[in-house]
Each structure stands twice: as C-alpha cells, then as structure tokens.
C-alpha cells in the first residue's frame, strides 16, 4: 500500500511539473518527483543510487533550475501554445505507454538463479571502470561547455555596453 502511494505521488508530481505554466513551480514539482523516485529506488534495494539521485536530482538540479529561471526570467503564462495539438500529443503518449505496458508488464519475472553478492564500490570501480572514465570525461566536457557559454555571453554583453 505504501509503494502504491509512492508511485501515485511520484506520477502526480511529474504531471504537475509538466502541466504547470509557472517555471519556478514546475521546478519544485520536479524536485518532488525526483525525491519520490529516490524513495522508490531505496525500496527496490538500491540505496547508493537513491542517495545520489536525492542529492543530485532533487538538490543540485533544482538549484540549477531556480538559478537559470532567475536569470532568464519567466515568459508570461498562456503566451506559448504547444507545437503539436494537445489531443494528438496525449494520444501519442498514451499509445507509447500502452505499447510499453503490452511488451513489459507480462514479462516481469525475477530471475532467482543469478545473485550478485559483491559490494557496489567493487562493481563500480573494478567491473565498470570504463563507466567511471566516461563520467569523468562527461564532467570535464560539461564544465568546459558551460564556461564557454557563459564567457561568450559576458563578452557579448561587454561589447554591447561599449
């Protein structure tokens, strides 16, 4: 019953994040969905990733959203209409969900024969060391890209002032 409540609240938060017109409110709903996703991950037996998702997904990303919305400002609500007509979008999304449910839900059987007793740190640092390397490359690339974007914007603003 508790799991059902978590899933329902998570989907409600995600729907509100997508539906809302105010960006700041949408960012807060997204943080709620992220926190509930982390709770579900913990219930599924993945506590390490749940903690990371809670701190990064609900913490860092929300702070970044608020920061970006403060700088960029909000568009007036109701000004932007959707690219695809809303009924068509709903039908497409429902078809995708229905297809996924048709393919995935009947095959939800756990394989009891394979048991992985290793610790998370051992699997991450030894078995999946290439993933760690990829994460480092992604971090450096992301930081350099953001720095480049912000420096370019600052230089342009300075040029306009002159």
């Amino acid at each position, binding site marked *: 019953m508790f799991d059902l409540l978590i899933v329902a609240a998570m989907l409600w938060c995600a729907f509100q994040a*997508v539906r809302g017109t105010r960006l700041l409110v949408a960012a807060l709903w997204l943080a709620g969905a992220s926190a509930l996703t982390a709770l579900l991950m913990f219930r599924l037996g993945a506590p390490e990733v749940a903690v990371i998702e809670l701190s990064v997904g609900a913490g860092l990303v929300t702070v970044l959203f608020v920061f970006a919305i403060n700088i960029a400002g909000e568009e007036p609500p109701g000004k932007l209409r959707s690219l695809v007509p809303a009924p068509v979008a709903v039908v*497409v*999304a*429902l078809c995708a969900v229905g297809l996924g*449910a048709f393919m995935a839900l009947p095959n939800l059987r756990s394989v009891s024969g394979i048991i992985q007793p290793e610790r998370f740190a051992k699997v*991450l640092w030894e078995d*999946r060391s290439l993933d760690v390397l990829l*994460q480092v490359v992604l971090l450096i690339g992301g930081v350099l890209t953001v720095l480049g974007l912000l420096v370019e914007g600052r230089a342009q603003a300075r040029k306009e002032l002159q």
Partner: protein
Amino acid sequence: MWLSLPFLSAVGVLGLLGIGLLGLLVTRNLIKVVVGLQVLVKGALLALVLAGRLSGQVQTGQAITLTVIVADTIVSVVALALAVQVRRQFGTLDLRALSTLRR
C-alpha cells in the same frame, strides 16, 4: 501480483516515460523542455534499477544508473546554460521564435 513492488515500479516507469513524452510534445518553452526531459530520464533511471533487481544484478544496475545520472545532470546544465544565452540573445524562450530557417 498487482500490488507487488516490481509491478508498481514498472507502472511508475511507464507513467514517467509517458508524462515526459507528453511534456516534450506540448511545450514550446526551452526550460519546460528540460523539465520534460528530466521526467523522461527519471523513468529510465527507475527502469534500470528495476531491471537490475529483476535480473538479480542489483549492483550492476546501480552502476549503470549512476552513469546515467551523471550524463543527465550534464545535459541539464548545458541545456539550461543554452536557455539563458538564448534568452539574452533573442529575448524569448519560445522554440518557434528561434527557428530562423522557417522564412
């Protein structure tokens, strides 16, 4: 079966994927596009953890999920920085207004 944790998690995964797809389809605001993408990726993260649990390889599922979290965060940061620059340059966050190839 219907109230088991794997089944409910699978329903959550499908719901998040559907809501994220809907958000990407209906919005024209650049920052809302990033919000829709975040919801979509949350569904993918949950699917990875669920697949790890069902296959009995929870730690491998967690390791792959960690990689996706890092990649998703970088994508969000870069997309938000781009949105801020677009707002400074064009004065709007509207996707349609950014298309200079239309006319």
